[in-house]
């Protein structure tokens, strides 16, 4: 090829690359219809902003349009995953607050916030003062507290054992705290997958082990129930959007059903009633299937069953979700209350509980949640 021809051909190639690049995305915006949910990132897409003079002048429109365009970029999921892979490749295994460890195990950082921990203990103590019924607390470490051999080098993670112990010391003696680390470690040693790889939560099998141990240790005994096991695949957990990978296989979620059990699940704020603990629509619509029990929304839910047990007030965070089916077969009535961020609920704890008179109160929480003070507003 002549020198001039080479130059022309290379210029043409370069221009074609750029024009193709711009066209691909520009046409993508026109051709690809609006998508409501991004399943990989587990969030809703930004909607198209409305143009008004006000919204333009105050920057809302411009910001909204940028968000919309980023969300609706053709091949967005591919690009987000590519970015994550590149970060992983260059050794960037996360941020200060989440990490992608060995074997693709995701972790959430645990931080000892002394003041928040004290506020949480004070709040629970204050709550306990107002009641005579037994109060138990199942406290659970995160994956980083158990699967520490999979943590990336140099991560800074406060000891969950230390946080749990500091919490125990501040907790009123009438509250029986069950720290679950030993049970989970034992289950892990038996080869049970105790934490999801792409999620900070424990698995259903792990939760069942902890539940059974708790029932025995607390002297309540365990009513025998024959559960049917169901599996839902294509599960990507909460932490997955932080660092998705092209090579990550989806996980499988186990959920139990009791074919003989009869349940009435009532949402007290809306009065909406169902006869099942699970939201089966999640089997097809969402990749995060951990939150199938009660659709992941456990604010003031009353569950009655045909179990011959007593009444339980169940408080805590999302770690309680895989336990709800199991608890519903041990208690005839459960009032479930999401104890996190109570100040944003518009109701005090007394108002949330209403006329429900429990025989026992159970908190199910993670060390992470108590340390960051998420349930420290329950006494307000």
């Amino acid at each position: 090829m002549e020198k001039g021809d080479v130059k022309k051909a290379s210029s043409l190639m370069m221009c074609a690359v750029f024009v193709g690049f711009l066209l691909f995305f520009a046409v993508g915006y026109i051709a690809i219809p609006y998508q409501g949910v991004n399943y990989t990132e587990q969030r809703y897409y930004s909607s198209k902003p409305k143009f008004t003079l006000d919204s333009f002048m105050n920057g809302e429109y411009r910001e909204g349009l940028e968000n919309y365009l980023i969300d609706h970029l053709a091949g967005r999921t591919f690009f987000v995953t590519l970015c994550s892979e590149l970060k992983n490749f260059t050794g960037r295994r996360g941020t200060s607050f989440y990490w992608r460890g060995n074997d693709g195990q995701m972790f959430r950082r645990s931080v000892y916030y002394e003041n928040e921990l004290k506020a949480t203990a004070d709040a629970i103590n204050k709550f306990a003062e107002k009641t005579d019924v037994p109060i138990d607390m199942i406290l659970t470490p995160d994956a980083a507290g158990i699967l520490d051999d999979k943590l990336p080098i140099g991560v800074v993670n406060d000891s969950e054992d230390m946080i749990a112990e500091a919490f125990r010391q501040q907790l009123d003696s009438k509250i029986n705290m069950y720290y679950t680390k030993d049970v989970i470690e034992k289950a892990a040693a038996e080869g049970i997958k105790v934490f999801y790889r792409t999620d900070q939560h424990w698995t259903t099998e792990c939760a069942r082990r902890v539940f059974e141990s708790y029932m025995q240790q607390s002297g309540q005994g365990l009513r025998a129930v024959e559960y049917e096991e169901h599996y839902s695949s294509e599960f990507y957990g909460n932490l997955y959007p932080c660092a998705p990978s092209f090579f990550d296989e989806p996980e499988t979620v186990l959920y139990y059903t009791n074919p003989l059990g009869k349940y009435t699940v009532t949402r007290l704020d809306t009065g909406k009633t169902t006869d099942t603990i699970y939201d089966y629509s999640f089997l097809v619509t969402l990749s995060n299937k951990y939150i199938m029990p009660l659709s992941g929304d456990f604010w003031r839910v009353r569950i009655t069953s045909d179990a011959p047990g007593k009444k339980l007030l169940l408080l805590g965070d999302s770690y309680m979700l895989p336990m709800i089916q199991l608890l519903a077969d041990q208690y005839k009535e459960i009032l479930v209350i999401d104890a996190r961020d109570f100040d944003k609920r518009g109701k005090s704890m007394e108002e949330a509980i209403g006329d429900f008179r429990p025989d026992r109160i159970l908190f199910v929480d993670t060390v992470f949640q108590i340390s960051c003070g998420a349930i420290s507003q329950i006494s307000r």
Partner: protein
Amino acid sequence: MLFSSTTFLFGFLSLVLLCYYVVPRMFKNAVLLVFSLVFYAWGEPVYVFLMLGSIIVAYVTGLLCDRGKYKGRLPLVSMIFAVVWNMGLLLFFKYTNFFINNANNLFDLKITPLDLTLPIGISFYSFQTLSYVIDVYRGEVKPQRNFLNLAAYVTLFPQLIAGPIVRYQTIEDQLTGRKESLDKFARGVKRFAVGLGKKVILANNIGALFEEISNTPQSEMSVAASWLGIIAFTFQIYFDFSGYSDMAIGLGKMFGFDFLENFNYPYVSDSITEFWRRWHISLSTWFRDYVYIPLGGNRKGKVRQCVNIMIVWFLTGFWHGANWNFMIWGVYFGIILLCEKLFLLKALGRLPKLVRHIYALLLIVIGWGIFAFEDTDKLIQNFKNMFGFGGLPFAGGTHDLFWFTQNVILLVILVIASVPLFKRIGEKLAARLPAAYGCIIEPLCTAGLLIVSTAYLASNSFNPFLYFRF
């Protein structure tokens, strides 16, 4: 509007390129003007009128200070008016609150600071319009009689927000006589992709490390972490600003313009004198031509030259922002440059190249240590930490190992990208395998850069442009 945003890339740029290449030549500047105004109004809907005001002043004063046409005092008065207008705007918007706050502190006054937002790019376009009028007054360029052409020059979106400071004389002929070509467009694409990659892949990632370190509580820090933080900032500011300049130069080429270079691998310098010949070249040369030389430069004796150098560097620091740290930063470099001019360069010349290079890099990094912190308390604390007076361990801070293991590969990439290694490899390949390099390797690398940059953009991570605030 950021160059590194989807709104710009897939909306604005696609549209402006389409319109520009569709319309006849006589409308091309009009297209650029309209789109440049939209580009500016996107970020500053109100201040676009301020910029238009500056263009009108530059146009009128430019015509009136033509000494070939007007005799007497009119040209001088016009030029002074343009200087007062531009400097007045800059002082008012950028420095009023600085003066108020300092007066309050110094004299215990209670003057309420004004509710002012700094118009984006004012530091750049003020200098451009000013240089235009001064050049006309000096007879170095002819006044632009076509308002549209002058407005197109001032508002030209590739260089409007963060430079390089394109002087009128650089593109006077190009405003009406430029020629777009396939080859120039291709070179523009390559340059733009390199700039985008520098910004999105390198600067943003290392910038996140600096942010993290500078927001870490003192109790979790170490001397090593403080140095790591400031080294991260050293890389961030280079790849951020030179990336922007590359994108600006690349965009300029796509529209047929040739802007002057603004960076030339500054971190390979052996002295601070050399560093400032390689860093933000358009600003250094602006101050040289419009401040240093008019003050007398080196023509009025050694003492006066030293005074002139210090004035220029104080103003260079002040130009960067209304904060003491910028002024200290300017004076810091002024003193070093003075020392180098008087005796240090000769002494350095006798040292091995490696030692000279370490000397320069150390002073550059310390300089960025001053530049990075606008909060004086943080600035002092950081310097205490860096030099072992902060009561910190040398290493072994809470996050040291994590930061190092997470960023070591990135740091290696940044070091390699700071030297002209890729450029030389490219040149060698182009010489040995012209067809394969030009038709396959280069377009593939460019496509790769664009795709990876888009991936980082899609993940919507940390994406500030440091020089927007100046």
